[in-house]
């Protein structure tokens, strides 16, 4: 079954495309790019990644030589045999990205949590990397 968009819909798509191009956000919708944050807190670093639709078992995190690598696979939507796509914007497939660890951490104490489509990798700082307040005598 082939479901051609109407001329009107096509016009809207072109407009959306142009709009997103002008706003500079075309990357967000054109391929699977995973936005990340890197945060420093008093006693730890935090790496956050947007991974909607990813389950624990489809995710691999590795720490090596001061870098964190995140591998994930998002499976394509399975739709019933008699179904037809009207819109298909969500990207899927393999993803991997490596980011540097911002400072010295305790490699054995790194943990990760996945909630609401966001992965948090928690990297406790080593004693050396912690900021100490020096009391003035």
């Amino acid at each position, binding site marked *: *079954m082939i*479901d051609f968009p*109407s001329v009107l*819909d096509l016009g*809207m798509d072109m*407009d*959306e495309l142009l*709009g997103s191009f002008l*706003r500079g*956000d075309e990357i*967000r*919708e054109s391929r699977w790019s995973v*936005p*990340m*944050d*890197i*945060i*420093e*807190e*008093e006693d730890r670093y*935090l790496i*956050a990644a*947007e*991974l*909607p*639709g*990813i*389950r624990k078992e489809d995710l691999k995190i590795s720490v090596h030589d001061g870098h964190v690598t995140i591998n994930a696979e998002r499976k394509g*939507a399975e*739709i*019933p045999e*008699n*179904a*037809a*796509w*009207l*819109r*298909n*914007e*969500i*990207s899927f497939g393999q993803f991997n990205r490596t*980011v540097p660890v*911002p400072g010295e951490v305790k490699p054995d104490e790194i943990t990760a949590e*996945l909630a*609401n*489509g*966001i992965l948090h990798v928690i990297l406790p700082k080593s004693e050396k990397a912690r900021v100490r307040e020096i009391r003035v005598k």
Partner: protein
Amino acid sequence: MTNKNDVTVVRSTAELPVRQAGREAEFVRPSTDVYETSEAYVITIDMPGVPKDAVHVTMDQNSLVVKGTVGERYGEKSTILFAELQKNGYYRVFNLGDGIDRNSIDARYEEGVLTVRLLKKEETKPRQIAIQ
């Protein structure tokens, strides 16, 4: 299959509550899949970072509005070294045609993905006609 215009993704720029021109929009348009079966339309929307209780799905006679807000992610003492994640929230509007049963909507939110199922009215479903 008919009634493919029963769920139309609205061009959301006009609907977006944007701040002043040139400034970052408060909400982004989330990536969306829509498919149609003989019984229903199924809409899938990526909203990573939105807690379940901050996902709002509202329906009136003509449209379905999906909104999700991202709360404060990090504590006050945090320093952001690198920032790419969506900071505000997501907003998207769908036009609904007459063929959709307004009384049977089902929404589910899992792993940052919202799935909304809209059932077709009995009379708009394809029927098998028995040959006499």
